[in-house]
């Protein structure tokens, strides 16, 4: 009798290659700490204090001008320095040098000083650690809303009150909590800086091979007898993001092994290697996009036509009400678009809607940055000489009837479009890198990428359209 042939064994199920995401670290760039000048500056006890002094002096002048200077914004040096110079320049600094501003920020210096004098040094409350970025998101939106409804930028008095409120928050934080709790968990500009710094070309990182042999009990994090601890609660050994590093160089000074490096990298490259995407950070990126949209919208001549039309047809004359509706729509638009795309994508890839939202929100950051800088470029280049005139006016200088513009509108417009083009290209490329890093299979990559590219294209088109329309000055 012939035994029946055994049935062929079922082929072993091939594991899905995409079940485990690619977590290879980002490539390491050139270390600037090998440059003796950079190394000497970073290790100097004078850095960054020597820069804090002039910044704090200018801050004092700004606060004084805002609170007791001329009531008209266009005569006030504080308004010009704050909203025509500092505010437009600050996102450029974030892109070039990450959160370097936070190292020289007068609020940071104030927090440190208060802490030294009377600080209780309580640990950061758990709710701040958990919801800090959401608080930052909410406060950023609230400040933007308040600016439009109460005219903070147009009013030196309003700007002065904003400064006093922030100062009080910094003093409370410095008096009761450890290190720079306010800067890390509550500062709206810190949140913005954290997001934008990811696109920057400079990063501070530890050489983990050296750290593995370290016996200094995390001196880079805890500080030493002579060097303060990391103000932003970041442990260099595990740090993989610029979001919470202000380049204060405390870790460089306290590391006994010279393990800390300052490296250059490709712009936006950090966004390609995000290991733990956070939904609140993606939401902030979307909210910033919404804020850029509403800022552009309200600067269009067309906006006033719209207000007049609404007043005529509905009888609603409350600017606060109309703006609030427009604000909610503008902020909801990018959030809704990304959420919709994520919902669509979740049907075709391995992650749920919110994970997709969190992962691909970072792809919009380059477009955010570009739109923000392009918008502010108008203030900086078309109104920039107001800074010279108003500050010169404090010393009795007569500006002789010059224009406030540094360059012609044609140049501004070209620069805006170049920036937007770079932002769009970087966003598309980032989305591609994120999708390719997460998924190995071509079908999943394509299915994931298509809706995300559509979102970027829609938001880019909206920005391009708005920048093509005539804008009016706010000051």
């Amino acid at each position, binding site marked *: 009798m012939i035994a029946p042939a055994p049935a062929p064994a079922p082929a072993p199920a091939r594991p899905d290659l995409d079940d485990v995401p690619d977590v290879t670290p980002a490539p390491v760039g050139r270390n600037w700490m090998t440059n003796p000048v950079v190394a000497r500056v970073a290790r100097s006890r004078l850095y960054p204090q020597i820069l804090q002094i002039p910044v704090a002096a200018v801050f004092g002048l700004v606060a004084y001008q805002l609170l007791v200077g001329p009531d008209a914004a266009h005569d006030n040096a504080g308004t010009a320095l704050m909203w025509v110079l500092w505010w437009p320049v600050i996102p450029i600094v974030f892109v070039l040098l990450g959160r370097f501003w936070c190292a020289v920020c007068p609020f940071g210096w104030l927090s440190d000083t208060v802490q030294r004098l009377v600080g209780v040094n309580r640990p950061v409350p758990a709710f701040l650690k958990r919801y800090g970025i959401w608080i930052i998101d909410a406060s950023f939106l609230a400040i933007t809303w308040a600016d439009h409804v109460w005219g903070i930028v147009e*009013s030196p008095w309003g700007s002065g009150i904003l400064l006093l409120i922030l100062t009080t928050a910094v003093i409370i934080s410095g008096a009761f909590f450890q290190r720079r709790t306010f800067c890390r968990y509550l500062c709206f500009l810190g949140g913005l800086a954290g997001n934008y710094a990811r696109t920057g070309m400079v990063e501070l990182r530890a050489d983990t091979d050296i750290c593995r042999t370290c016996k200094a009990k995390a001196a880079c994090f805890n500080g030493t007898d002579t060097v303060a601890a990391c103000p932003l609660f970041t442990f260099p050994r595990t740090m993989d993001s610029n979001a919470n590093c202000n380049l204060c160089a405390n870790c460089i000074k306290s590391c006994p092994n010279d393990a800390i490096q300052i490296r250059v990298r490709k712009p936006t490259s950090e966004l390609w290697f995000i290991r733990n995407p956070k939904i609140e950070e993606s939401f902030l990126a979307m909210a910033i996009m919404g804020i850029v949209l509403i800022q552009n919208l309200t600067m269009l001549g067309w906006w006033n036509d719209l207000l007049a039309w609404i007043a005529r047809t509905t009888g609603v004359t409350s600017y606060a009400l109309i703006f609030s509706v427009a604000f909610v729509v503008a902020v909801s638009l990018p959030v809704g678009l990304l959420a919709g795309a994520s919902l669509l994508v979740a049907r075709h890839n391995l992650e749920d809607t919110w994970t997709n939202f969190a992962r691909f929100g970072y792809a919009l950051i380059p477009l955010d940055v570009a739109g923000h800088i392009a918008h502010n470029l108008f203030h900086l280049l*078309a109104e920039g000489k107001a800074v010279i005139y108003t500050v010169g006016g404090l010393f009795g200088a007569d500006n002789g009837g010059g224009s406030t513009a540094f360059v012609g509108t044609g140049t501004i417009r070209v620069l805006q479009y170049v920036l937007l083009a770079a932002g769009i290209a970087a966003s598309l490329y980032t989305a591609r890198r994120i999708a390719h890093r997460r998924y190995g299979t071509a079908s999943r990559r394509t299915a994931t990428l298509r809706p995300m590219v559509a979102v970027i294209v829609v938001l880019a088109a909206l920005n391009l359209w708005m920048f093509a329309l005539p804008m009016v000055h*706010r000051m």
Partner: protein
Amino acid sequence: MRRLLRVMPAVTAALILAAGVATPAALAFAGSARAVVSLERSTETSMPNMPGMDHASSSPTPAKPETDSHEGRPTPDQPGMDHEKSPMPGMDMPGSDHSDGAVSRPRGLLLGGFGALNATVLIAAAVLRRRTRAERDRRRVSRSAHTTNPRHRDLEDQNR
């Protein structure tokens, strides 16, 4: 990407040069020519109330009436051009109460309140710090006394 990065500065410089040399009309690719003219007007005639920034005499007045970029309506009353935030009667615009005249502000109240609030915070923190430090010192002293006292040490040895 690397090639793009290499080419970008050259393209940018060329575009800026072109913009500086060319007329706004040549940049119409960025929007309608009308929009560029209108934007230029907004830049050149802004901030008339700033010292030395009254361009009424120097601003290029268009020979023919300017038209809005979308609807073809005249735009001499383009809002925002003259820093009047609310050209619409009845609209409660922010900052519409700004005027060049002196406005009475409750500066004393604001600065006094700011000073008082922050002084309270600083004093409260100082008291808390003193109390916390004193408590910590007391605890440390009692702990060291506890371990150095021979009776306590004997008790600890017995417990072990």
